[in-house]
């Protein structure tokens, strides 16, 4: 589709057609969080099993467009087996790629965040989503699963910092 090559990369369509880690986990013990894109109706549920600080398993449920589904699929593949801290860095790196700099007054002159804040990580397959930035409306689709993951990670951290 002329004009949409940057959006619909082959690898994205592949993840959309064959989503990885699709399904549910029993919760509890797994952590569970829902995310909504109020604008187009996408809904995502992230199930995450972490025994200690490692992400042992992750599953994705819900429905959405090719971008939100493929992003979720790639995200699940990328964080599975990683530590919570590593997953956090990935979230940051991914959102930075999506041009989202938190706590920034993003007017036209908003200066980009210092690079120091943005972990230099290999995003691998996820790089394919870089083209989404040219389609501002779709950024919310691409980041939906990541924001939902971030909520789960927060939950895990606050649970582990609570006195047992």
């Amino acid at each position, binding site marked *: *589709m*002329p*004009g*949409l090559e940057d*959006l*619909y990369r082959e690898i994205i*369509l592949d993840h959309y*057609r064959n989503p990885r880690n699709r399904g549910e986990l029993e919760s509890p013990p797994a952590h569970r969080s829902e995310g909504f894109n109020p*604008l*187009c*109706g*996408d*809904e995502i549920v992230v199930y995450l099993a972490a025994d200690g600080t490692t992400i042992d398993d992750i599953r994705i449920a819900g*429905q*959405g*467009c*090719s*971008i939100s*589904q493929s992003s979720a699929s790639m995200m699940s593949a990328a964080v599975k087996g990683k530590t919570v801290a590593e997953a956090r860095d990935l979230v940051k790196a991914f959102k930075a790629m999506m041009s989202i700099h938190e706590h920034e007054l993003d007017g036209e002159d908003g200066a980009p965040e210092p690079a120091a804040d943005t972990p230099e990580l290999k995003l691998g397959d996820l790089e394919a989503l870089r083209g989404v930035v040219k*389609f501002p409306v*779709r950024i919310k*689709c691409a980041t939906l699963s990541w924001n939902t993951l971030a909520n789960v990670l927060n939950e895990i951290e606050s649970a582990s910092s609570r006195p047992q």
Partner: protein
Amino acid sequence: MEARMSLDVARIKADFPILRRQVRDGRLVYLDSANTSQKPQAVIDAMAHYYENSNANVHRGTYLIAEEATAGLEGARAKVARFIGAASEREVIFTKNATEALNLVVKAWGRSHLKAGDPVVITELEHHANIVPWHQLVEEIGIELRWIPVGPDGHLDLTDLDRLLDGARVLSFAAMSNVLGTILPIDRLVAAARAVGAIAIIDASQYVPHVATDVQAWGADFVAFTGHKMCGPTGIGVLWGTEAILDDTPPFLTGGEMILNVTKEGFTVNELPWKFEAGTPPIAEAVGLGAAVDYLESVGMESIREHEVTLTGYALRTLTERLGDRLTIHGPAEPAERGGVLSFVVDDIHPHDLTQVFDQYGVCVRAGHHCAKPLMRSMGLGATARASLYLYNDEADVDALAAALESAADFFAF
């Protein structure tokens, strides 16, 4: 195939400057009027003319342009009153949009008249604007919210209506669904509400722009609609209510304009309609809405409706013929029973991806839940694509949509 049309759509298109715009190397094909309508030059010019010649605050000034501004605002009110068949312009309250109008009803009338356990009946196809304010009353005072279900044909399922209405204090419903296009059985619903002593509230946001409206004939208590969907500007909506119920409703937003007197101890409210209009009203927006009413009347609401029924029929046939089984169009099959709102899904292609492809062809269609999540859930859908028609659309627009659909179907056919 050229269907017989009563409107000269080419001439109407020429009235809307945005439709001359070229996007992505083609013309703009605007098919999202259920979301917001485009504006004719006459409306845009009326507002510019107001700002360039008569801008002043209203009801306050003792000089020429203030009188002109007041005449502009109140003249627009009179036009709207006539347009919807109100008994008097005292019954026409300007709000910022339909959402504020419905919130006013719920928060001013509802909070002062309902108590814990009081049943309020709405339908499953309501827009969030006619749901969430009621949820707030559930939380706040414990009213009981009941839902009239929607059948697979896109019509209300009224089998249990009597049971649902039993003891009801309120029946509130959309005159036309913004997702399915369904025109609701307004007379029957209002009569059923009356029979149990419930008040009737009609969200006519999708109806007033498209079908000649006579609020007195409906016999409801409140009717809400919004300016930007009827060729008018953003920033203005309308709440109509009978004088009796408006008199029996305490003020909502308060401040300037809506008072007769203020002391350190309290305040006295102004008369209708100003009692419900706090602060500087949307003056230029009222002038624009008045011009929109003039425009719609000059075209003729009967002709507009006839045109839309014909074009909806054409769209239903064309899309089905060209897309075949992969396409499902929701809502009533019979054009006469619906407005020109076509929600559809294509197998294996998410609506958001569909509309992304459409955009490459300049075709503007909305994808999502259309602020009607309970309906979507009851239909088992996350999202639909929704094309919606208005007086400035023609068969060429529908053909452009069909072509874009085919192209998307090809692209995503793996």
